[in-house]
């Protein structure tokens, strides 16, 4: 049944049709469903920021900020981090604990690299006099990158917990794969958001 059919059921007379199992909304673990809703919330956050961005951009005092080329390098690093976590997850699925560990560490290190790169971008821009308070265009740049960075830091907390458990002697590969799966999904999505933000900043 699709959702409209489900909502059209007459619950006072449908006893003949109800199969006695739960008809949960999604074929996924609760953690995955929770993550999806969270990513939805994150999308709303960035969508609203975009709306504010366009409204503020319409004012006369807007001066475009030059985007440092280092952002391109950072983007590549984040893409690599996403690939590494995907590889870790796939290795886990094949039962390969060694590659799973390697992928996890690689993903985390690359992400930290990305964050360091973003901070270098901030430093460069400040050194050139592009402070957040100088122009709203700068302010939005810091806000977008800052919020995205904070979400990556949040991801790193989950990553840290998964990675530390990967080295426990009683590490359960299946459970570890599930956690890596959640990390990978989060990373892919935040990569998408970063590409969106980056694209928005380039185009406008």
């Amino acid at each position, binding site marked *: 049944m699709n959702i409209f059919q489900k*909502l059209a059921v007459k619950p006072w007379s449908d006893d003949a049709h109800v*199969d006695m199992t739960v008809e*949960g909304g999604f074929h996924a673990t609760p953690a995955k469903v929770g993550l999806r809703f969270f990513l939805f*919330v994150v999308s709303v*956050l960035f969508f609203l*920021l975009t709306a504010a961005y366009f409204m*503020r951009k319409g004012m006369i005092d807007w001066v475009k900020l030059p985007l440092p080329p280092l952002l391109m390098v950072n983007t590549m690093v984040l893409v690599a981090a996403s690939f590494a976590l995907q590889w870790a997850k796939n290795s886990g699925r094949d039962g390969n604990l060694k590659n799973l560990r390697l992928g996890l560490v690689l993903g985390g290190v690359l992400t930290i690299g990305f964050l360091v790169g973003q901070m270098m971008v901030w430093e460069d821009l400040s050194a050139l006099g592009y402070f957040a308070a100088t122009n709203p265009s700068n302010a939005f740049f810091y806000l977008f990158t800052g919020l995205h960075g904070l979400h990556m830091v949040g991801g790193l907390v989950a990553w840290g917990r998964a990675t530390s458990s990967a080295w426990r002697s009683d590490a359960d590969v299946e459970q570890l794969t599930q956690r890596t799966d959640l990390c990978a999904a989060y990373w892919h999505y935040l990569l998408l958001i970063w590409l969106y933000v980056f694209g928005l900043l380039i185009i406008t």
Partner: protein
Amino acid sequence: MAHATMADDLTELYHPKTFIGKYIWSQDHKVIAIQYTITAVSVGLVALTLSWFMRLQIGFPGMFEFIDADSYYQFTTMHGMIMVIYLLTALFLGGFGNYLIPLMIGARDMVFPYLNMLSYWVYLLSVIILMASFFAPGGPTGAGWTLYPPQAILAGTPGQEWGIMLMLTSLIVFIVAFTMGGLNYVTTVLQARTKGMTLMRMPLSVWGIFVATILGLLAFPALLVSGIMMSLDKLIGTSFFMPAIVSMGEQLEYSGGSPVLFQHLFWFFGHPEVYIVALPAFGIVSDILSTHARKNIFGYRMMVWAILVIGGLSFVVWAHHMYVSGMNPFFGFFFATTTLIIAVPTAIKVYNWVLTLWKGDIHLTVPMLFAIGFIFTFINGGITGLFLGNVAVDVPLSDTYFVVAHFHMVMGVSPVLVVFAALYHWFPKITGYEFNERLGKIHFWGTFLGTYAIYLPMHYLGILGMPRRYYDYLDAAFIPDSAYLMNQSITIAALIVGAFQMVFFANVIYSLIKKKKSDPNPWNATTLEWQTPDNPPVHGNWGPTLPVVHRWAYDYSVPGAEKDFLPQNMPRGADPNAQEEHT
């Protein structure tokens, strides 16, 4: 569609042994619900006291020395923000959501118990940060609960140094807490329903809380964004919302920012917020009316659809708060139209409540009195909403006491009546004890009649053109003496109604001391939370096996049934009318 449910999985459930593990750092949804409720109600009492102070100034200007203009604005601001966010939102979702969702859908707990616990403690942190602003230099912010820039962060507004930053920080922390809780409620409703609990067999309380949570998850990011942006304007001097401005004779560094942008973001959160509070109230009141009228809810499907439609529409009406903000007039037309359309599903709900009562076997119990009181108050408040939704009528009434009367009726008194209806209704389940019926009725009549003594006259003050948020009217010529007299009477009524709430607390304390054991299902209700093996339910809720659901939640006054109702978990075979229903 069939797939394994995690609801049967017992391995995850962690049973603590110590007192601290059971009642302080608890992961049990019921304990967390009580923690949320106690915190929300405590902070609500602070807000109630603040409203007394405000009313004292309005009724008897200048008589109380401790209320100067600054503190008056601080009281108003804190009263509004606490009531809307820290009391009602936290109580309906954190309190009732936490308690009812797992019990009503037949789960052992929320799907992420640890996150649930964290949600409460982060919420408590946000409350502490907010309360800290009373002790900060300069006191709490007096910017009005809407926190409009530029005045919110400029000199001249009380609390512009510490108060506003503590307020914004507290809101950001609250949103983090809400998100953790909200993800839990949504995922639990979707993934942890017990066998046979299809979406359309869920009690309307769960539907209301579920949709309100989704609204919250979509709306709170707007508040988060505006909170962060305003903090940056304040702290590092960006100009997101701040235009070029001269303050106290001094040209500030800001330039080009848009205060209207803040208003758009704020109300994109602010209007759904009304429904975040209202939808759980709608759901809960539906269940209470049905149970105490011994009749199935009229138009169950329509009720569910109306909740969904209201939820959707609530995101396209926000700018009706901004008719006088200098928006393009065509926007005003659009938002007036959507605002009036939202009255349609809302009216459907009201009709269905009334039709549920029609020819019902109405038991005027304490929860039922509060629920019926809600219908009256909600209709009153809703109808003035139709006035204010029209641009041409709103412009002269904007920022008058008419608006104050409207929103207090519709989202102050109405939800609070439901809060009490629900607290009395579920009190025997939560504590296992009976409450005192007579005290409950005294509490109801004092509250119900008293709130009318407060808010009905306010409509007249508004039509007279009396502006809200004024510390003192300084004998303005257009305000007749009778208006001052009316304000005195409103103030006296407000003091009495506030004091009447103590009857409720007296009742709770009395019942907890008297310890008169309640029947496990005193209202003969059908929903699962009344069918638990223990009363009050213990950690894990259901004993060794989960309940299985065989019917919807509204089988009341069933002909031939042993006790006139059929609980949701009663098998079909035990139903005397099973054959009839099949054909």
